[in-house]
């Protein structure tokens, strides 16, 4: 625990100079994490890149809650004192080097050793251009994660979220941003003086759906952030249109539409432009989330007078209630394996992220916050990102499902809210 804090202090110092979400603190970290060493990478030749690959990897692995990754104060080149690391109970040692081969081209080498068997677990040489260093660090983080745990990591992925800042003149500026999974490299894709909410990635990561009030009412737009195309507005309706959720096929979007005032969930086919009604209840039905196989949706409804979560099997048409604990459960989202739902659960006066085992109906409250919102799973299911409040300011929070460690991300000024996590890039 002390070691972790020592490393984190450095995070804080470095983070302030960067244009990114700031990592502010880690809460509730336990000792169960996997202790490893990630030495600074040796740099051969001229490297103007100030990007510290080893540090990015360390921060990534520590954020997962499954590792306690420490640095060394000198580089490791090829000889490892396994006895020393065994004595200090480190399970693996990672080191590497960055070698310039031409002004813009570099070779990156990485080596992973198991301390107890004293054997190489993995080594690799990768050629990369200077603009790809940060992506490379995330790619290597996923490699290390896979080599040591046998599971896919969630590092070479993106976050999207909405930021809100107050102008001098009292107005607000809303931005829809996309960043790397560690909050770095943020880029604004939509900017508006009117509210933006509910960003949702298509599974292939090419499209983003979101709700904008630019026309003074809630409407759903779809954009392709990587191409020069103008956002498409989904057909106009007489009432609200909101809460977009992509079908895993990417061919249709579930959304909440208010026709004659009745808020129901519809499936909009992007090609045929046809709407299929998925719920018909007179109450509020909204916040749809598709199961990974696309065969079910979970959604929020107040059909019994209480706000609860329901699951509709789209094949049989059967709707069953999913939450039974508490009087307010909303904003469900399926875990990548389809077995759990993350949701917002009211406890007394507080709204907290909870995890529901769909089959057993076991509900586990994950935080002790006052006002959590918008939970979303990392693509490997190991973490949940959500927004919450600290000192009356909206921040993002990432909780590890392995040891409940929480990492908080915030902006220097203004709020950050409604995070979603992209799927794996191909």
């Amino acid at each position, binding site marked *: 625990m002390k*070691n972790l804090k020592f490393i984190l202090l450095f995070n804080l110092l470095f983070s302030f100079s960067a244009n990114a979400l700031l990592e502010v603190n880690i809460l509730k970290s336990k000792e169960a994490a996997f202790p490893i060493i990630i030495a600074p990478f040796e740099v051969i030749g001229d490297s103007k890149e100030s990007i510290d690959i080893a540090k990015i990897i360390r921060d990534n692995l520590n954020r997962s809650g499954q590792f306690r990754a420490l640095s060394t*104060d*000198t*580089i490791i080149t090829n*000889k*490892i*004192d*396994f*006895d*020393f690391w065994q004595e*200090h109970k480190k399970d693996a040692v990672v080191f590497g080097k960055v070698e310039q081969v031409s002004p813009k081209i570099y070779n990156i080498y990485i080596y992973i050793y198991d301390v*107890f068997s*004293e*054997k*190489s*677990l*993995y*080594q*690799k040489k*990768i050629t990369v*251009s200077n*603009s790809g260093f940060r992506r490379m660090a995330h*790619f290597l983080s996923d490699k290390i994660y896979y*080599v*040591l745990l*046998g599971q896919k990591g969630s590092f070479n992925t993106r976050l999207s979220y909405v930021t809100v800042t107050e102008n*001098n003149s009292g107005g607000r*500026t809303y931005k829809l941003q*996309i960043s790397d999974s560690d909050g770095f490299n943020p*880029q*604004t*894709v939509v*900017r*508006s*003086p009117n*509210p933006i*909410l509910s960003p949702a990635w298509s599974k292939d990561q090419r499209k983003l759906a979101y709700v904008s*009030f*630019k026309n*003074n009412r809630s409407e759903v737009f779809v954009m392709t*952030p*990587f*191409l*020069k*195309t*103008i956002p498409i507005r989904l057909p106009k309706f007489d009432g609200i249109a*909101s809460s977009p959720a992509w079908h895993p096929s990417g061919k249709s979007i579930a959304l909440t539409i*208010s026709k004659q*005032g009745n808020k129901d969930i519809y499936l909009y086919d992007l090609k045929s432009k046809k709407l299929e009604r998925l719920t018909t209840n007179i109450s*509020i039905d*909204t916040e749809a989330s598709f199961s990974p196989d696309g065969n079910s949706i979970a959604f929020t409804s*107040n059909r019994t007078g209480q*706000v609860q979560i329901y699951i509709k099997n789209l094949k049989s048409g059967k709707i069953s209630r999913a939450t039974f604990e508490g009087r307010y459960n*909303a*904003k469900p989202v399926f875990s990548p394996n389809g077995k759990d739902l993350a949701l917002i659960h009211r406890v007394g006066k507080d*709204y907290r992220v909870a995890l529901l085992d769909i089959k057993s109906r076991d509900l586990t409250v994950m935080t002790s916050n006052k*006002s959590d919102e*918008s939970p979303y799973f990392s693509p490997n299911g190991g973490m949940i990102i959500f927004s919450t*409040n600290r000192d*009356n300011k909206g921040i993002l929070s990432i909780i590890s499902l392995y040891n409940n460690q929480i990492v908080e991300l915030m902006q220097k000024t203004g709020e950050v809210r409604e995070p979603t996590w992209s799927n794996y890039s191909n």
Partner: protein
Amino acid sequence: MSKKILLLSSVILLSSCASTNISELGDKFLDLINPSDAATEQVDLSGDATLIAMDETGGFTISELEQLSNDDLIAIAKEKGLEDLIVLDADGNLQNRDQIINAIVESGDLMDGKTAELESLSDDALIEMANSKGMGEMIILDADGNLANRDELINALMDAAVATLAIIQNFKNSSDSFILYFSYDDTEIDEISTRTIIEHANFMQDNPSVSLRLEGHADERGTREYNLALGENRALSVKEVLGLYNLDDRITVISYGEESPVLVGSNEEAWKENRRVEFSYY
């Protein structure tokens, strides 16, 4: 503890250490490695496609605008006729950079408000609007059924809009109940609210040229999308009462959910103020 490790590790690098037997089997992790993965490979990670944001900006991407100097932004603002918005401090530095960027982003819609809105309407939409304002007799169609007096009609609609604004202003001065409040997660209209709604119904019946927009809002508690739905239900329940007076056609309903609070704060006082429906005439 960690310092000790860091210091010791530098010592290790100076001393030679035991050679490792890589061919030894029985490694607890080895089975986790995908063998095809181990060789050298080229990965093209260069040059992620630049994110482009075309939305709402006109000739500039948002990133471009954000990276421009203040002087450049001032120049663009002047080109777009936005110089009135520029606020400089005593040293001549731009004070409201964000506001200027927003204004440039929005500049497509920044012509002369109401006139621009009318100019942008199709003939059919103008005709529909004139009819809904009780000005049907003003419409002149040519032999082909097309609108013959577009400019005249726009002027008349402008005049009517000005007159309507005066009526609305007058009502605003005489009445102080333009907001109705609600209980937590509730759309129920209480007796006080009912009296207010009747007052508004009378006003609308007396003034057929005014239209009403009901804006529903929620407090910050609970999820954003549910609150968006809840806000609309609040506005709809007000509309339902007004509907008893046959005013449906002149009422539009929108919801801002929890996105537009009157009072920012996480306490009972703020929540009470924010659970509301606002009457907005036009």
